[in-house]
């Protein structure tokens, strides 16, 4: 993240890592206050880490320092917290239930019709990504004409794309990752208010270090160079 702050002209005042079962964030909140940053970016994940957002709001810091997060919302945190604790946190995902396009509206209607009372809140990305993943596979099978493993893999490699609620999702042959639409939203009353839309965003960082078309059976673990 520090690299992207630097690229964006900013800088990281301090970076801290938390074991997964830490629940007391008092000292961390105090360190943040001492550092007086312009904003806080959190990549916290898991049930115990929700305590950070709670203690952050309880210490009255929500009104003082704005917060963004790369992970908030993925684990339904927006449902866990009360509006006073969650509202205003900015996050970016490839889908929000509140995304405003025709495909999404049609999908949601059919979805509610099918599940009726216990229709779950889709929130951010996770559910939709699995749905889109299955459809990409289906597209590969259609093109390959068979469900045989190797043939489908070949078909997937020849550039497959699917249109759906999150917009257009294209399988990138160089990295086997996907190019898709990204939305920036802020938490609002346990839901999301979509602010910006970035269509067709490629997996730039992976593409910079990996090209499967040049070396098809590379099997080493590739590390994106984020050294500052």
């Amino acid at each position, binding site marked *: 993240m520090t690299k992207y702050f630097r690229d964006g002209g900013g800088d990281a005042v301090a970076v*801290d*890592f*938390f*074991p997964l*079962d*830490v*629940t*007391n964030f*008092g*000292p*961390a*909140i*105090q*360190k943040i*206050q*001492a550092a007086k940053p312009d904003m806080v970016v959190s990549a916290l994940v*898991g*049930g*115990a*880490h*929700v*305590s950070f957002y*709670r*203690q952050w*709001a*309880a*210490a*009255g*810091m929500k009104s*003082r320092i704005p917060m963004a997060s790369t992970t908030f919302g993925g684990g*339904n*945190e927006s*449902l*866990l*917290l*009360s509006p*006073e*604790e969650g509202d205003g946190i900015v996050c970016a995902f490839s889908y929000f239930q509140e995304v405003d396009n025709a495909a999404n509206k049609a999908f949601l209607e059919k979805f509610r019709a099918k599940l009726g009372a216990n229709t779950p809140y889709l929130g951010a990305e996770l559910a939709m990504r699995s749905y889109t993943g299955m459809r990409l596979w289906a597209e590969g099978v259609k093109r390959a004409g068979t469900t045989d493993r190797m043939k489908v893999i070949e078909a997937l490699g020849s550039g497959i794309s699917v249109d759906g609620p999150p917009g257009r999702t294209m399988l990138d042959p160089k990295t086997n990752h996907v190019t898709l639409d990204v939305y920036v939203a802020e938490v609002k009353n*346990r839901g999301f208010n979509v602010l910006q839309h970035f269509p067709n965003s490629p997996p730039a960082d992976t593409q910079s270090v990996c090209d499967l078309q040049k070396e098809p059976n590379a099997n080493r673990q590739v590390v994106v160079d984020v050294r500052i």
Partner: protein
Amino acid sequence: MDLVLATGIQALSGIATLLLISLGLAIVFGMMRVINLAHGEFLMLGAYSAILAVQAGINLWVAMLVVAPLCVGLFGVVVERLVIRRLYGRMVDTMLATWGLSLALIGAVTMIFGNTVAGFSAPLGSVQIGAYSTSGYGLFLIAATMVLLAAVWAVLRFTPAGLIARGTMQNAGMAAALGVPTERVYALSFAAGAAVSGLAGALIAPMSGVVPTMGTAYIARSFITVITGGAAMLAGTSSAAGLLGSVNTLGTFVTTPVLGEVLMLAVAILLLRLLPQGITGRFFRRSL
């Protein structure tokens, strides 16, 4: 200057939280030699009952201070009747049975309430200390823990019920010979331990993520605190919580959270190696 004061308060709230979540386990383990590995889930049940009470419209403070301990206390009686009563004296089997209970509770709560339940935010707003602002609820937590500790101490020390309970624990045979209904004392002691855990769960609910698996984050900490504390229940747990709580909080503040955690666990192992019977195995031996 305000930095020192604010850090002091952080350390105090770290110690208070550790003491709060360990007290219920200390009562059950300290007095009854029963190792309750479902203690984390008792905390979780306390948090859930408080949240559900608030959702049902009951006042926040009543929900936390009355409803939660009551529900979890009653649940404690049921658990003691069905499971624990058959396993007295069999320490290992109690550990395994309560481990099973812990898994079952996580499963049951996940089935009934799903993975997320809407929590309520911490009351009492924020308080300004010099340049630092901290949560008013954090200060309340410290006070509540001190009051709870004093209350448990007073009950054990001054009331006849406390005396009977302590007597039964030290020598059930003799107590029975003196006409004490030991079965009922065991049930009530376990229920008291459960009630305190329920209260602790409810009190930490506004400051933590309430999910079915929240217990697993607390069980290790409270277990280590009680074991390092040693036999004497209140003195042991308080001294251990004081030591481990401050090491963890200050460690996290000075270095990184990871080192704060590792430091705490390292101190615990060191203590267990030097004082296998815990702090009160050697110091303040005769205290409660």
